[in-house]
């Protein structure tokens, strides 16, 4: 089984494979942030910090224990989620931009912590041994992507997801309806961070080298732009947004030194012309129904903002 998958992966162009894996990891991270920012409406500028916690935790687990990779991923996710809940408990009382700057500050603190943490080689970074699994890494990443998409889609329409949307639309009204806003916000934060941790673990084992400086503010911003660009709170939007942005530097590679310049300008123009994201306000169920020749129902009772 492992050999067949291995040869399948080997038959794909390694450069293309690299891009595909980057896109996959970006989707996992962005979906996690989408739960926090898109569904719950809590602006976080520190998603990369949870990614780094996940990356270093899973790298250390692989180095110290040699646990099977699937167990490793689960443990990493849980550790990250617990850290997020512990941090979220005090800071999620803040709202709006105060919360944003607090998550940003926290992310900077995490980065400096790892830069000075002896067991992970401080600023030299950590070389990660290959994962203990028969499934090749690229396929593993895309398996997790599928699981993440299914998970977030289910969460969105569950009781839990509806509570999160209520908090996003109006926190006071949600509280008046008997929703324990603090508890739900912490749970959403933990769930998003769980996914960030798993994404970080995959990132660490795919690249086999991690450095605390890779998880700085710009990384958080990258993930946030994927979520906003695709359309806040929309799973297909997030998937497309992260695919576009994660592969954009590669498509722009032909203009070599101008590519970050173009990337910056692209972000501005996309926002100016599509302020709600590329797919913000696009209703996928309607599109799908129309495509198979059925008239979408006109019931717009629960239309998203």
């Amino acid at each position: 089984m492992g050999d067949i998958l291995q040869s399948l992966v080997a038959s794909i162009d390694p450069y293309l494979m690299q891009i595909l894996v980057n896109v996959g990891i970006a989707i996992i991270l962005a979906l996690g942030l989408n739960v926090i920012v898109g569904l719950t409406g809590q602006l976080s500028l520190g998603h990369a910090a949870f990614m780094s916690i996940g990356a270093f935790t899973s790298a250390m687990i692989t180095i110290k224990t040699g646990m099977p990779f699937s167990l490793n991923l689960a443990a990493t996710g849980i550790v990250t989620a617990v850290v997020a809940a512990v941090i979220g408990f005090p800071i999620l009382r803040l709202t709006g931009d105060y919360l944003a700057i607090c998550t940003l500050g926290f992310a900077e603190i995490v980065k400096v912590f790892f830069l000075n943490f002896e067991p992970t080689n401080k600023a030299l970074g950590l070389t990660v041994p290959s994962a203990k699994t028969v499934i090749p890494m690229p396929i593993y990443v895309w398996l997790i992507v599928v699981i993440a998409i299914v998970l977030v889609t289910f969460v969105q329409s569950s009781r839990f997801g509806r509570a999160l949307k209520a908090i996003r639309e109006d926190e006071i009204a949600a509280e008046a309806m008997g929703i324990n806003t603090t508890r739900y916000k912490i749970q959403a934060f933990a769930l998003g961070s769980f996914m960030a941790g798993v994404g970080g673990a995959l990132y660490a084992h795919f690249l086999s080298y991690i450095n605390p400086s890779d998880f700085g503010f710009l990384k958080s911003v990258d993930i946030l732009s994927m979520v906003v660009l695709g359309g806040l709170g929309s799973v297909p939007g997030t998937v497309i947004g992260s695919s576009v942005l994660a592969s954009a530097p590669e498509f722009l590679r032909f203009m070599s030194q101008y590519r970050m310049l173009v990337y910056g300008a692209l972000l501005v123009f996309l926002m100016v012309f599509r302020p709600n994201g590329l797919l913000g306000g696009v209703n996928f169920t309607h599109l799908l129904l129309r495509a198979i020749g059925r008239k979408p129902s006109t019931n717009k009772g629960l239309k998203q903002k």
Partner: protein
Amino acid sequence: MFLQQLINGVALGSVYALIALGYTMVYGIITLINFAHGEIFMVGAFIGLLLVSYFKVNIFLAIIGAMIFCMIMGVLIELVAYRALRKSSRLSALISAIGVSIFLSSLALMVFGADAKGFPDTAFPVQQIHIGSADISTLQLLIIGVAAFLMLGLEFIVQKTKIGKAMRATSEDYNTSALMGINVNRVISFTFALGSALAAAGGVLVGVLFNAVSFNMGLMAGLKAFAAAVLGGIGSIPGAMLGGLLLGVSEVFGVAIGYSSYRDAIAFSILVLVLLVKPTGLLGQKITKKV
């Protein structure tokens, strides 16, 4: 020793305060975190450097030149990247600001290269003044002096002039000010011009102080200045000054007692702690939420 570090801290802190003022003014009026502000600070430093090393002008003229250049740039950025987004969600405007920031820093990387550039020694002759056990350089005095002068000037503009009154009114209530006949667009442009000018002055001062100007200096300085603005209470002008000084002084003291590798974490730890105790910052007004 204490006096020495205090002066080092105040010099650094007054630069943070200069940058923080731009964040706080823009936030006060259109509730946008202007992430491009740190890059304006960086561009200001480069313009100052160019003026001093190629056009051989006096450091004060270089500061003024950088301020004028960045004023125009700030107004243009607002026009291109933010004005169209004023009615849409705040996150879109934030991403647009981040786009501008990436654009400017990569532009600077292309134009000026990746390595840090220093000011020529002749830019400002540094002398040491001994007061007790402390050595104060004339450079630090210059920084504190220029920063204090600019802040007093800002206070005058905001409190005593007509446009300042319009600024205060707009930050109080955007829609009502528009109804009262205030040209809100002009006020916002003016706010961006003021904030960018202060950041540019801060950029030149930091460039001279650390003798290093590089394309990525805007990010960390911008984040810390933003932290200073939030620490003081975002939207409050005296708050930004207080927050900047507080962060500068505590950072210098933190480094002095041996936490130099935690330098960047000090500012943010203080910020997080203060926000947990007083969620609207030190001088911020309490916002009552209405249903």
